[in-house]
């Protein structure tokens, strides 16, 4: 990558849930404007990495740096206010709140980054949501929920978007649409850290890739290399 300092730096992070340890020294860098993908199968620690960055599951060792300042152990709301937006794997829509209310809850004043997100702009990105403003979150389909959860996080105008398995459990056509919209966000200059097990989906978006296995980084390099090298892909991801 370029010589510029990364916006996000994860340094040798170890994380455990209670007694069971999940991450064993994960280090990641994300530069401004990049789309970086964490690839790996279920249970290798992708979600835990994201949660460690957000402060939802604070690391037991290691550091998380955001634009050079140490945010390790910050409360999640402070991390979010510093410019990181997290889109969880299980979506976690507020089921009793309407689509509009779900978005409204997450509104924060615009700051740099891809900035200036408004409810209108989210509806522009995901027109389907605009038709459902009054519907309760719990009554949306999986795809609609996924759009809402991304839209909701965007309302906070993050500079870095942490997307945890957005394609999971979605119909292929919805996945395609989602990929296009994420590409659009990237085109708008948003920095993205994506966790996926869907190889094709992530390789279509990512600039660089980290492959996780059993709580540690097994491979890191440009996405192009994985795209080009089927043998390597097979070896790393064993499809």
């Amino acid at each position: 990558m370029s010589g510029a300092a990364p916006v996000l730096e994860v340094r040798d992070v170890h994380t455990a849930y209670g007694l069971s340890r999940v991450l064993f020294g994960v280090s990641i860098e994300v530069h401004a404007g990049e789309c970086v993908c964490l690839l790996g199968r279920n249970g290798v620690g992708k979600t835990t990495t994201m949660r460690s960055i957000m402060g939802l599951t604070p690391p037991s060792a290691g550091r998380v740096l955001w634009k050079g300042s140490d945010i390790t152990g910050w409360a999640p709301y402070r991390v979010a206010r510093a410019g990181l937006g997290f889109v969880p794997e299980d979506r976690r829509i507020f089921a009793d709140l309407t689509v509009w209310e779900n978005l409204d809850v997450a509104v924060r004043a615009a700051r740099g980054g891809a900035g200036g997100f408004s409810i209108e702009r989210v509806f522009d990105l995901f027109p389907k949501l605009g038709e459902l403003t009054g519907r309760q979150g719990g009554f949306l389909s999986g795809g609609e929920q996924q759009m809402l959860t991304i839209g909701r996080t965007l309302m906070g105008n993050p500079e870095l978007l942490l997307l945890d398995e957005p394609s999971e459990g979605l119909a292929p056509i919805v996945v395609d649409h989602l990929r296009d919209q994420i590409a659009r966000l990237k085109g708008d200059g948003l920095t993205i850290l994506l966790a996926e097990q869907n190889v094709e989906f992530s390789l279509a978006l990512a600039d660089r890739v980290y492959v996780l296995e059993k709580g540690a980084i097994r491979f890191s390099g440009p996405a192009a290399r994985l795209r080009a090298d089927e043998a390597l892909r097979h070896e790393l991801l064993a499809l």
Partner: protein
Amino acid sequence: MLEVRGVQKAFDGFQAVAGVSLSVARGEIAAIIGPNGAGKTTLFNLVTGHIRPDAGSVLLEGRNITGLPPHQVCRRGMGRSFQRTNIFPRLSVFQNVQAAFISHRGRGLDLLSRVDRLYRDETDALLASLGLLERAGEMSGFLSHGAQKQLELGIALASEPKLLLLDEPTAGMSAAETHETIRLISRLARERDLTLLFTEHDMDVVFSIAQRITVLHQGHVIAEGAPAEVRSDPEVRRVYLGERR
């Protein structure tokens, strides 16, 4: 052995399981695969009585068990391990398995005898076959994740089930542990003449031991058959393996 007919379940309007039918023959090792959120765990919970289906029925050895509470389903001969490790953390390893024996053999209401030695041989034998015997006295909550998963299997086996449901038996395990667990499961299934139904994310695991695979996607069955058939099914490759040719 197990027959699931058109089972449906919706949560707050979200159709988690939309009419799933499948059957598992005696002695078979069957797997359910599908992306997260496809409805696998919900389907398991429907089968084991943890939640009631909105429609459809579940038959165990030809008898209708739809809507029975879990403790009765268990008594009819179904054992289960859970996706998130589910043991009795502040009991010793020995006590975990012993409790399952006590319950299964109907001694749970015995207020008079001493529990210490009850079913000691059976428990020890089972722990030995799981490779946990040396750790019998340890508090189970302090075991490693992999060992807890094995213990959970032991608890399920102590109920002497005819049908064993395993929800992601190797989730979160290291490669070595996964390998070992799979060997263990197939050995136990053989020795104990078990019928096995499991969900799993690890494709190596699925294709190495399953004789039949059902693929679930968005609450529907999209494919079913022998591993080779399923593996080559274009639909499955597309939605699950995430590749398109």
